[in-house]
């Protein structure tokens, strides 16, 4: 498939995602619905990985580029962020090691339990 066809496929999935999001009774990000949808299409073999090769490579390599506008948009909230800078940094700084610790220990515990079950 050429790049335009690939883009049509990706945009189509996103469009369906928006449609489903509009039907849901709760506020759920349409982009995540599109991701799950695409995952299902790939796993069921309806969409082949090679249908997505060229377009996705360009987007994956430069993914963070698409996050520049929201970042620049914070200019509007500069005052608010200055006031709360300490709180923002503490919240993000403290919770990251915590999430690491809890996740790692859960998985490690899980794996020890699985190994024991296999032996027993």
């Amino acid at each position, binding site marked *: 498939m050429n790049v335009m066809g690939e883009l049509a496929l990706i945009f189509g999935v996103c469009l369906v995602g928006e449609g489903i999001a509009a039907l849901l009774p709760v506020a759920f*990000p349409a982009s995540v619905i599109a991701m799950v949808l695409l995952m299902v299409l790939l796993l069921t073999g309806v969409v082949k990985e090679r249908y997505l090769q060229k377009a996705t490579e360009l987007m*994956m390599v430069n993914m963070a580029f698409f996050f520049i*506008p929201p*970042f620049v*948009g914070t200019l509007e909230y500069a005052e608010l962020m200055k006031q709360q800078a300490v709180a923002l940094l503490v919240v993000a700084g403290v919770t990251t090691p*915590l999430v690491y610790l809890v996740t790692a220990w859960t998985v490690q515990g899980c794996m020890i339990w699985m190994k024991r079950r296999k032996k027993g």
Partner: protein
Amino acid sequence: MIHAMLYSPFFGLATSIVSWCVGVKVQKKTGLILCNPLVIASVLILIGMNLFHIPLECYEAGGEMIQLMLGPVTAILALNIYRQRTVLKEYFVPVVAGCFVGSVTSIASVYLLCNLFGLDEALTASLIPKSVTTAIALGIAESRGGIQGIAAAGVIVAGVCGAMFAPLFAKWFHITEPVAEGLAIGASSHALGTTKAMEIGSVQGAMSSIAICVCGIMTSVLVLFL
């Protein structure tokens, strides 16, 4: 003429792409995690607009076009998990358990700390998804009335913090299992951490990129119960 140029969508598009290229170059040259291309590019644009007194709305005409691509960029993350499907099948239980507990911990701890600091609802909503990858975090923040830019900043802080300290975390917390290390890196510091995880080892890298998608989906569902 200048006015017409400034208010053209090409202004936002061109400045974004140019500063992105500069950011990528700087990171390649220095090799520092802190020299994140996204941060460098955004800071360059902000400095430029401040210097020449260009209003934000000039940038936004082109910015909105780039932002429109956030949906497709999130959707193609599906490929990540598809490519790891064999590993995912093998470690299904630890992946689901780890990502679930990690997502709950992240949401609960951010929520509690934000309340402790007395942050308002918009700020809290922006920080809640800070452990998931930017594309998904922005979607979650938007759907909950948060500010996308602050959400992106929170995500970056978590990512840089995780990428820098991941090897130390493993030592401090006595994490010996590569699967556990990878999932923990992905759950706490998403794509930025995954780059580091890939340097540590291939199992860690694979697990970390699985955790990005799984935690992203779980977090977007879990926040509905908040």
